[in-house]
């Protein structure tokens, strides 16, 4: 079924009885060309692009819970391409281009809203660092505008321009940055993949990876053994556990990142805004809730929930930066499990096992990468070569020291990002 305004009208007039499932619930076959472990945003988009771009449709996505139940459904929905280091820069640029037009491509309204993103800076040194970033964005062919304090004021009048502990010097404006409806992204890709013949198998946990003679042969699951020529692990949040099934240890530590939404409010924040002197980023959803987040709780965790010191840090940053949100009430907090890599950048690569691929290490930033990540992983799986926009996400970069991608400059060691 094709979705459109007309369709909504027609169904509305006939009692909405004609809607059909967005995807099937097939039982797993015994054999696939490609098995993707993980039915989150990245796994689903990988399946979609395998089918769309490479004609590989004998594909199963195995999800231990429900589709889109991981980080794609628990993030702050920010979409941007404002990275500056080679490796990241071209990849996120590529991903943003896929976002643009995703609705038509998927025939699903993911509500990608390019409302503009502004990173604030609070010192000359930060301005210089953001200038370097902005210039990298321009050199990549993306958009960036360096705004001074006086240009920012009319755009974001609610910021504390008067007595902020770290005064606002200006901001790096990324007009094409914005947000999207996170769940819809997962569903849109799921529906798109399903329509192209991919089997989406929920409640199917992978319990083993079959390797013979250094090559992958299939997986063991709670719904039986499945043979596969190629297997991709796309399970951010559980990467270390799944990789362990293939005898691998990854340069990953798992952390909880909390995020928050307030009660619905009339429009008051039109952009995505991030604070430069404390981890804090915020936007307002189309329903009116302020959606915001900050830093990790900062301890290894698989609990998908956080603690109060983490909460307070974020709220304090919010109160410092834009005290007008003080009377907005936090309605809900949640925690996502982040694959934290040593340099803060992801890994999309082959492994030491033939036919086994890994996609992990998304740190805070996996949501915006959903289209790009699936697209380049599909390329790698289908062609055996890295996509031209994803040559930097190598698994061995820490061992060799070559191509470490440390955007934040905090170091390439665990727990500095």
């Amino acid at each position, binding site marked *: 079924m094709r979705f459109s305004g007309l369709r909504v009208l027609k169904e509305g007039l006939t009692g909405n009885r004609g809607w059909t499932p967005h995807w099937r619930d097939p039982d797993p076959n015994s054999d696939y060309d490609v098995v993707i472990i993980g039915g989150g945003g990245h796994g689903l988009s990988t399946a979609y692009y395998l089918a769309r771009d490479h004609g590989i449709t004998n594909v199963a996505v195995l999800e231990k819970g429900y589709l889109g139940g991981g980080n794609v*459904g628990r993030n702050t929905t920010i979409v941007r391409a404002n990275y500056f280091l080679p490796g990241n820069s071209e990849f996120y640029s590529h991903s943003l281009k896929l976002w643009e037009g995703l609705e038509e491509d998927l025939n699903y309204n993911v509500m990608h809203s390019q409302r503009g993103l502004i990173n604030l800076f609070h010192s000359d040194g930060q301005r210089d660092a953001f200038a370097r970033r902005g210039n990298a964005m321009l050199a990549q062919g993306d958009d960036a505008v360096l705004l001074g304090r006086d240009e920012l004021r009319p755009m974001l009048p609610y910021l504390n321009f008067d007595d902020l502990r770290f005064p606002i010097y200006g901001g790096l404006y990324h007009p094409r940055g914005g947000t999207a409806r996170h769940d819809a992204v997962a569903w849109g890709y799921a529906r798109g993949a399903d329509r192209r013949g991919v089997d989406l198998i929920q409640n199917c946990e992978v319990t083993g990876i079959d390797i013979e003679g250094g090559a992958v042969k299939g997986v063991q699951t709670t719904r039986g053994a499945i043979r596969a020529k190629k297997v991709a692990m796309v399970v951010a949040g559980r990467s270390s556990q799944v990789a362990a099934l293939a005898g691998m240890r990854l340069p990953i530590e798992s952390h909880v990142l909390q995020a928050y939404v307030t009660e619905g409010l009339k429009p*008051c924040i039109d952009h995505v805004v991030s604070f430069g002197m404390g981890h804090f980023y915020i936007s307002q959803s189309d329903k009116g809730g302020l959606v915001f987040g900050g830093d990790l709780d900062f301890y290894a965790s698989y609990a998908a929930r956080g603690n109060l010191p983490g909460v307070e840090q974020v709220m304090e940053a919010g109160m410092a930066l834009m005290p007008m949100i*003080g009377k907005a009430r936090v309605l809900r907090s949640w925690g996502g499990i982040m694959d934290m890599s040593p340099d803060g950048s992801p890994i999309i690569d082959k492994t030491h096992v033939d036919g086994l691929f890994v996609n992990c290490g998304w740190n805070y930033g996996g949501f915006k990468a959903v289209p790009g990540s699936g697209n380049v992983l599909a390329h790698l799986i289908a062609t055996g070569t890295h996509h031209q926009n994803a040559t930097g996400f190598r698994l061995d970069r820490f061992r060799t*020291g070559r191509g470490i991608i440390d955007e934040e400059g905090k170091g390439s060691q665990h727990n500095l990002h």
Partner: protein
Amino acid sequence: MRLAGRGLIDRSKPVAFEFDGARHSGFEGDTLASALLANGVRVMGRSFKYHRPRGVLSAGSEEPNALVTVGAGDAREPNVRATMQEIHEGLQAWSQNRWPSLGFDLMAVNDLAAPFLGAGFYYKTFMWPRSFWEKLYEPVIRRAAGLGALSGQAGGERYERAHAFCDLLVIGAGPAGLMAALVAGRAGADVILADEQARMGGRLLAETYEVDGQAGHLWADVVLAELDALPNVRRMGRTTVFGAYDGGTYGALERVLHHSGRRPRGAPVETYWTIVAKRAVLAAGAIERPVAFRNNDRPGIMTAGAVRAYVNRWGVSPGQSVAVFGNSDDAHRTARDLLAAGVHVPAVIDSREDAPESRDFELRRGAVVCDASGRRGLEAVTIRTAQGEERIAADALAVTGGWNPTVHLTCHMNARPVWRDDIACFVPQEGAVPGLRAAGACNGAFSTATCLREGAAAARAVLEELGRTVRDEPLPEAEDDPYRIAPLWAVSGKGRAWLDFQNDVTVKDVKQAAQENFRSVEHMKRYTTQGMATDQGKNSNVAALAVLADATGRGIPQTGTTTFRPPYSPVAIAALGAGAEGKGFRPERFATSHAASIERGAPMIEAGLWYRPSYFPRDGESDWRQSCDREVGYVREAVGVADVSTLGKIDIQGKDAAAFLDFVYSNMFSTLKVGRVRYGLMLREDGFVMDDGTTARLGEKHYLMTTTTAAAGEVMKHLEFVHQGLQPDWDVRFVSVTEQWAQFAVAGPKARELLDGILDAPLDAADWPFMSCGAVSVGGIAGRLFRISFSGEQGFEIAVPARYGAALFDILTDRAEALGGGPYGMEALNVLRIEKGFITHAEIHGRTTAFDIGMGRMVSAKKDCIGKTMSERPGLLEADRERLVGLKPINADGRMLAGAHLFREEDPPVRENGQGYVTSVCHSPMLGQMIGLGFLKGGSDRHGEIVKMWDGLRGVTTLCEVTGPVFFDPDGGRMRG
């Protein structure tokens, strides 16, 4: 309608308030909802999507409909539950999410379009044309959505936070909670009793049952009086425990002043508490659920428990003629309470065929309400019996579909509640939160007697665990009626039957979601927005998942619940972030010269937590550059004075101090002579540069390390780790002395002259070569002197105990001025160091190695050190890495910008061609042009090459010559001289 002679309000204290500009009157003890009901106001809000007129549904914090805006100006508070807002003199409240008025809302047109606005409709449309999303669709949706509005102003009201500790936290002060607090309090335990209501007692205030032979609320008062007399019991009223966290930590919000118009100076309106409790008893009660039927959202339809609360606690009837609909004996109890209060009850509609007979009222057994009419207020309900449909006039309907235990806190640490078929609800999983026990209605115990029993038992168990002796005391007598319920979630039939009132999610929506294969309860929630409104599904989630279970042919336990997340009820950001507004975000660190710098008109800039002077303006100077150039001139030509106290200083002592420094620095310190200073480079274990600074050897076993201002804390932590974690056997001790010493750079050709004028004994040049240090005396005070330079001039840093810092700064600047110099700020300091090619964190920004900054040889080959092995990874030693260079425009008026990128002259500025970037620039008064430092691929081998500096952001392209990083006095003669 106010009922004569009923309720716990104080009729001797009338209170005037306004709603939507109209004046009303209530009594002390009223909530806004009870007072509005008493005044005959039935419509209190509009729903989110369809803008349907809505009346109050509940009498508690779970209220989904009666959300109002309270207060004005910067005290404006949106989305206040009318059921929780106590009225006070002068209270002003407004309805919200309507235009132009609550009675006539143009957005209600959405209700007519409802067939097209069902579950998930927006995922299927608004896709064409593409550009319309941001321009048209989204703005329209955003304006229609949302509830109340923020004032847009910074808060004029104060919020605060506080910490509390106790043996036992009792959450909820109904019969179970009171009993738990009483038993634990009598046994001497340190108890906190918290309850979200203004008045403690829970359902005892809303029901007519007796406890211990007296009215329930009177028994509650007796218990509360006893608790108040116990010094070991703290009562926290108007306090919602909103979250359970690790380690027995609970988040709680106390509403301190919302019930009053008073705002005493310094008083917070809310206090956010973190309560650390050895044990907790959850006695949070239960929330009644409505039954879904066509038009069940009409104003005047409310939960039966709420009706009893309004009648019994507030002396208000929601109508003249109140019908009752339900599936348990609660329906009967409600009718009896209404009748006792003199309210007409046209019928009790009980869905159970086997409901107990009653002679007190008209009972329809095996019947359901299947429709309701009256858009702005209920007029009649239609009931369906075996005989057919029948219309019954009523202006209010009390509905009970059963009770849902308030299990929320037990689920905050990821446990799921357990379904109990016998009472048709979810109850807490035992041990779900370590140290927390559920008791009473939140545990599925619905009679007063079982609540008392469970409360007492929970307290006893806690006392035993805490090792306290427990006296066995008899429980008070109370009602112990069985809870008889026949599940009823939704009445079948045409039309829309509401589940989630605020978000306008109907039974049809849930069924459609299932039809579209959103069968997981999480999918259904996210697709329909069920349970995502301000009540987080407290009123509707269980019914919705029952509908989903039905639609998917599964049982309720197999369908499962969505995840319960904190906070239990919404908490203001201002409370959770209290104290951080403005300067409170981080401590302010002031150097001892701060006041003097301010006095001289210096703009202060943030450096870490410190403030440092940017420059010291003089009369007649029109911009900072003039001041900066003048200050650079002081240092280059006379003498300049700068406060450098903010740099980190660490005192290191012990027989292994030298070995320790050799291990944490890449270069050698064991070979440093006493009385000398050496520059050191510190690496992280990953081989990248972490920090740099000078370290002085004050004695054989005594060093003084300097760190950068920004990295002082990080370095201290690192040193502690290396010592405690890696080399615990080494006998070395260190302590920060950053705060102890006020330290000033005195730099320039006349530096020595200045110092000779203030030191108690003049300096002997022979004793003070470059990179020496030692003790000095100034004004009889023991100080330290270091001959070091960050400017390239003959430089000293003089340190005195901080109490003398302000005085010394004044003396130094006065003397400097007398010698043709004066104080200099960060701008000049930056120019001076760039001219000399000295690096700061602009260059050692975390991604650079010693090799990159041209200090590869500072990683000593003779010894191990932190970071050494990893710095030798092949990728970190490749010649084409970006390496530190100097950059100089080929035209003297060429402009440079930090953050610009470098390209070959002929290459277009695209990423693939990137050659490097610029880190620091300044206008060099010495060279008379701009200069910069930057990183260039293979830069050390490209001196003399012309590269293109490109800054697309600011539209500047400048051809620059690549040079060594030292622009001025490259052989360092001035510094050493």
